[in-house]
């Protein structure tokens, strides 16, 4: 039994703020750690608005109503030997469990982790512990610039370390990876975000546009995703 597969999410009822049925909606969060043996579930999140503020105000021992695991996570093809994981910001929370799953399947991971500054880089250690090769890139020293990341990717592809791409947390990186994926015919997956009410495919509020047989189709991030084919996503 797994508590959640990498890329799956939980829908959190964070009605914490005093005096309001507020925030009204649940908040979607990737399972950062879901350990079936201990029953432990961890989330890594950035405090943003009311929902995440309410989460941050929770005291140890308080209850949190979570719904999940939900959605379709990352898929690892047994034929892949080496994958490249590219993430930025809290997108790394979504990708970290993937690195562990890959390691468990003896797939080698190169993780390009992007952040504004070295001190803002998240989860690098967790990637390292899986045996992944971590390539941190930063805005502060210019190493996260598209042309620099492109160089990294070129090298990885040349070294045959890129059987598949996985990306999360940055529109710019998504577009960049889509281009590489297309040019080099390397498959890929992207974990996307969209505002969610139900999280169970009922309300159709979480749609995003995708390429489908030359047309544009709306797919629900909570139900058909949050992980989608890299090529099909419209960045």
């Amino acid at each position, binding site marked *: 039994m797994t508590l959640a597969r990498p890329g799956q999410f939980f829908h959190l009822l964070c009605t914490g703020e005093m005096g309001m049925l507020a925030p009204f*909606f649940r908040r979607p969060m990737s399972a950062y750690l879901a350990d079936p043996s201990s029953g432990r579930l961890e989330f890594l999140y950035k405090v943003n608005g009311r929902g995440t503020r309410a989460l941050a105000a929770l005291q140890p021992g308080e209850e*949190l109503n979570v719904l999940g695991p939900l959605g379709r996570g990352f898929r690892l093809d047994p034929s892949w030997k080496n994958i490249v994981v590219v993430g930025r910001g809290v997108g790394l929370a979504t990708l970290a469990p993937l690195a562990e799953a890959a390691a468990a399947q003896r797939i080698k991971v190169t993780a390009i982790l992007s952040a504004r500054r070295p001190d803002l880089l998240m989860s690098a250690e967790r990637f390292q512990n899986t045996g992944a090769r971590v390539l941190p890139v930063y805005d502060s020293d210019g190493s996260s610039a598209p042309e620099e990341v492109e160089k990294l990717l070129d090298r990885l592809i040349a070294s045959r370390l890129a059987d598949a791409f996985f990306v999360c947390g940055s529109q710019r990186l998504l577009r960049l990876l889509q281009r590489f994926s297309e040019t080099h015919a390397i498959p890929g997956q992207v974990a996307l975000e969209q505002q969610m009410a139900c999280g*169970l*495919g*009922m309300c*159709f509020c979480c749609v995003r546009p995708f390429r489908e047989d030359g047309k544009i189709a709306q797919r629900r991030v909570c139900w058909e995703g949050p992980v989608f084919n890299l090529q099909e996503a419209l960045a």
Partner: protein
Amino acid sequence: MTSRLADVKTDSREPQVDLSVRIGRLTLANPVMPASGTFAEGLEQVFDFNRLGAFVTKTITRDYRSGNPTPRVAETASGMLNSIGIPSKGLATFLSDTLPFYRRYRPPLIVSISAPTAEQFAELARELTVPGIAAIEANISCPNIEADGRAFAMLPDSTETVVRRLRAATELPLWVKLTPNTADIAAVASAAEAAGADALVVANTILGMAVDADTFRPRLGSIMGGLSGPAVKPIILRMTYQAARAVSIPVIGCGGIGTAEDAVEYLLAGATAVQVGTATFLHPNATPEIIDGLATFCCRRGIARIEDLVGALVLDDASLPAAAS
């Protein structure tokens, strides 16, 4: 931490009381069903569908529709706005894929439909008059943003026209879903009854709007949308009361119902059954919990048949209507 997904399937107890209600010639095992557009196959993970009083589908249209721009929802105080825009896979897909799915379950299937004209409404009802469908719910109430929020159900006249056409088009029980964006729900309810409706659903969402004070933009991609959730309960409960007094066909209450107590309030005000919408987004097993809660409520209060609650509001002489603030 509690994962509802994990622990609710076990929560089905047999009620001691008779929870069944009659809606025209249909008898429902209990008076609780999902509201259109707030239910889908995904909920199968959460509870046993056979517990429902009925299924009500998302509104379908004849042809494929992609729906509105995002953002499609916004949070408000004790409520939500939506401008989903009735995305629909169209009739053909409904008949080939959705219908067979629901036929695997016991509860009757109510199919919600919408169309831009009375004639097309009738045509769609005709095409849906097939085995496996227990009733048609005509969504003539949906705030039509193209007409600045106007819809058939805003006026008695246009209501009567479309319901007559629908009535002539199908033998199936015909439920008509009204809009709260009208000045006179009782008149619209009477018009629908006169035109042959078997039951009324009161009501769809209330047209609303939200603005982002940071970006100066509307919070919904289509500017306006429908308000639902606990915030609207007092308004829709009042309309249910007014509609139920005006007609003799059953009224199905729908607006802000999230607990068994909410459902009881609607029954007392005159609703024969209730639909649960937004609550399911926050608590996916709200519907079965309401059913359990109703059974418990009736047991505790010594009520043998839930139909005894319908319209059982107690009024005394002191509470005669007078001028309000």
